[in-house]
């Protein structure tokens, strides 16, 4: 992924801390995506567009979400891809 930012660690200890931090943060994020699968999710998008859908899957670069039963203003779309660049936030309950 091109969006990964990285500091220039001054020493090996800092490098290791940074790597461990990345592992914990990435693992938690990936697990949150797994937990979301099959749940209704509310998406707040740009231009005041709000939609709900069932979350299915994401690519690993977090660029596209595959959703189903997308409730659009013009009806239900059985399967759809949402561009993550269109989304401001998303929320679900467990």
């Amino acid at each position, binding site marked *: 992924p091109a969006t990964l930012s990285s500091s220039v660690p001054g020493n090996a200890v800092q490098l290791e801390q940074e790597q461990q931090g990345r592992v914990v943060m990435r693992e938690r994020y*990936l697990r949150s995506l797994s937990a979301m699968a099959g749940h209704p999710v509310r998406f707040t998008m740009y231009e005041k567009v709000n939609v709900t859908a069932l979350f299915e899957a994401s690519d690993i670069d977090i660029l596209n979400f595959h959703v189903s039963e997308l409730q659009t203003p013009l009806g239900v779309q059985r399967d759809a891809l949402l561009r993550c660049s*269109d989304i401001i936030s998303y929320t679900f309950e467990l």
Partner: protein
Amino acid sequence: TAGRSAQPPTDKPGERRMAEMKKLYGVGAAKIQAMETTMQLNFDKNCDKKQPKYWPVIPLKL
């Protein structure tokens, strides 16, 4: 494959990716890569089967 000594050897994409993962995630690289591989396979399989179309058709944010 003889006679290619003038060219630098090209990396295998898998190896280059693992090297990149190692740099980012250190000793946890294998674990993260395993999780990501599962997730990407699932996404690709889903898309092959369901053929989802982008919504909205035109991006909201350019």
